[in-house]
């Protein structure tokens, strides 16, 4: 029995889908699904949900790196077996939640988590900085402009207290994408850290003939910067290849996705942009995109001090200046973007003005503005 490489199709099972979720519900969830009346944060990282049956579900939320080992998962299983009847769930923001059916079970669980070093930080609820959702970066991705896990670790270390406390004006969702493909909802985050390229692709004329379909490479460019061209390879043969009009290139990297012979990553070209003020919730104000406020910061491993400082600065100014319950983007809208740049001290440059499609929507067509130091 078992897999037989000589007969791979024997006894093959396909299309059975994921295991049914109900078997993983803790009893208190099973008994009270659809009956919950309200919830409350008991303390940072601990929520209680109260059912119409009178039952209570206490949830302890624990931050985690997105990149975790099976040893770490086994430790989560041990904790769950000891305190939470062997059940747990993961959130969309890479946190782990243990659910217990009485208040008495919370403190022993918190004590156990705290006894295991810094592996299981309790927090991520309410008006905190969320766990930073992120992409793969240099650990697995082939198109990144920056690392992911390393930048996130450095940033979360610096603003750790904001994860374990609930003292911000409102929740701040933090996210990182290691290139413009933006796996995940980085484009609608309160603070987004985004990997960006700044050099046009190189053309590998020695490889392009075997690797790429030239029409696909050409049509991949949204700005028509990639054109067919003749070139000479290392053997001295004239081949059909492409050329890139660097003046038109916006460094999106789509050509490299379609054609591996057009690499654009570069140690000095690549780095990080910071975007702020996006949200997905419909509460109070509509969902909205994040806006780019810092076009470039260098890649400076292992701890990316420029990026860490930029995130902390924005967070600190927001925390001190915004009204309570006001999301970061709502604060920017209320005070105006000129005041955002004034208060944060972030330089406003030509790069902050949109010049891509539909850019006109972002230009100011009113006399309503504030006199800040930008008006000389």
């Amino acid at each position, binding site marked *: 029995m078992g897999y037989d490489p000589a007969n791979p199709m024997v006894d093959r099972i396909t299309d*059975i889908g994921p295991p049914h979720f109900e078997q993983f519900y803790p009893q208190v969830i099973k008994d009270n699904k659809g009956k919950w009346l309200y919830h409350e944060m008991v303390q940072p990282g601990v929520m209680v949900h109260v059912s119409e049956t009178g039952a209570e579900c206490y949830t302890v939320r624990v931050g985690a790196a997105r990149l975790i*080992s*099976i040893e770490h998962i086994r430790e989560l299983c041990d904790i769950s077996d000891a305190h939470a009847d062997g059940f747990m769930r993961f959130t969309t923001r890479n946190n782990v939640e243990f659910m217990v059916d009485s208040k008495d079970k919370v403190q022993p669980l918190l004590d156990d988590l705290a006894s295991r070093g810094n592996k299981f930080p309790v927090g991520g609820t309410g008006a905190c900085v969320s766990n930073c959702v992120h992409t793969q970066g240099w650990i*697995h991705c082939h198109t990144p402009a920056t690392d992911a896990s390393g930048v996130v670790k450095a940033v979360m270390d610096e603003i750790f207290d904001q994860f374990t406390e609930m003292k911000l004006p409102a929740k701040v969702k933090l996210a990182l994408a290691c290139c413009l493909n933006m796996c995940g909802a980085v484009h609608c985050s309160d603070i987004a850290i985004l990997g960006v390229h700044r050099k046009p692709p190189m053309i590998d004329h020695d490889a392009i003939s075997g690797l790429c379909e030239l029409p696909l490479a050409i049509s991949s460019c949204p700005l028509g910067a990639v054109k067919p061209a003749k070139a000479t390879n290392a053997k001295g043969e004239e081949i059909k290849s492409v050329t890139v009009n660097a003046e038109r290139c916006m460094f999106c990297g789509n050509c490299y996705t379609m054609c591996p012979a057009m690499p654009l990553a570069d140690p000095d070209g690549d780095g990080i942009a910071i975007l702020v003020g996006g949200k997905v919730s419909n509460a*109070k104000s509509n969902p909205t995109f994040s806006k780019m406020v810092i076009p470039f910061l260098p890649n400076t491993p292992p701890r990316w001090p420029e990026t860490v400082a930029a995130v902390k600065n924005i967070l600190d100014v927001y925390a001190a200046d915004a009204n309570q319950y006001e999301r970061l983007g709502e604060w920017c809208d209320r005070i105006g973007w000129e005041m955002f740049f004034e208060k944060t001290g972030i330089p406003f440059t030509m790069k902050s003005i949109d010049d891509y499609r539909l850019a006109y929507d972002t230009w100011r067509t009113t006399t309503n503005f504030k006199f800040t130091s930008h008006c000389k």
Partner: protein
Amino acid sequence: MPKHDTPLLDELESGPWPSFVTDLKRQAETKPECWDILGQLELSFKDRITHWKHGGIVGVFGYGGGIVGRYSDSPKQFPGVAHFHTVRLNQPSSKFYSSAKLRDICNLWEKYGSGMTNMHGSTGDLVLLGTRTENLEPLFYELTHDLKQDLGGSGSNLRTPACCVGPARCEWGCYDTASICHALTMHYQDEIHRPAFPYKFKFKFSGCPNDCVASIARSDFSVIGTWKDDIRIDQAAVQGYIKGEYKPNGGARTNSKAFDMEADVLALCPTGCMRMKGDELQIDNKNCTRCMHCLNMMPRALRPGVQQGASILCGAKAPILDGAQLATLIFPFVEVSADNEYENIIEIIESIWDWWMEVGKNRERLGETMQRVGLPTFLRVMNVTPIPQHIKIPRENPYVFWTDEEVPGGFERDVREFRKKHAQ
């Protein structure tokens, strides 16, 4: 496999946030290929650039997705990660697990992979990170036979659907997000595993307009819970908030000022549809847009109405290629019920697919196709009557595409007849 010196990565072992470097080193004690993960990552930190080759097409027989191929560009230096393919496991709805299930997955991955995972990937899959091509078929065999579970999606197919926790542990879930997510995942196994679309297509299910899975920002087909009737009010609990007996905003801030009904709720209501008349909170529900702010502020006092269902929005995506898009409201309210096996929703999904598979260009997300053809064309395709809920504002330009049939007498005219009355 020998250890590599990792002076740069070692600096990420300090600090209060959990260290993935420490975790990798711990895993390397039993899975020595993790030393090569660390080694190659250290080289990337030194060189400030990725060391993974472009792409790589691998998979299991009969599937066109679920495995992402990856190869090191420095395999001699780091043989443990020469192949470093990702396996996407379709997660259970709302990412609930038992320790028994997770231990089985860990054991499988100890046997066939690097021991490193992402819990979870951005789309929602449980990601097993790093294995060799020859391990894929045996891993898949044991995954389906012994663990009785399956791969998720990748490539131009239906990506693994995802949902919020929903009514399982949230008082605001207006439909059972987990059940529909599971049911449609099972219904569309073929579309998940065998790419047949112009590009990726994502379903995401949020139980209320707080949208905890960011459905409106990143799914082609976004289902967001809502209600049609009146917000349920417990006036005694409203007084509880006013008197300071309950923590506002579900206790989400430890440094909130004392609750102020006027400043914290009424003034922040985007439609101004709430007021206090004496001790009574009144809501003009006809003018409420169900944004959730007052419910978020007073979860003990306010609850969604009882006529619950969902809004369906289409076409969200990240920036590549023509800029990011939020999803556009197409169906303001649909019933979401397991009783009809979600027949009404399946019908909507399939009319989108039938059309998009025909007219969508290669690597064009639904939102981009919608932009290219225009919202009116999309509504016509979907057989949806246009209503003001589809737009933020009516058109600002006067260029209407009238058709021949819409204008009396049609477009065909005789210029000579015209000239008889109007000299050149």
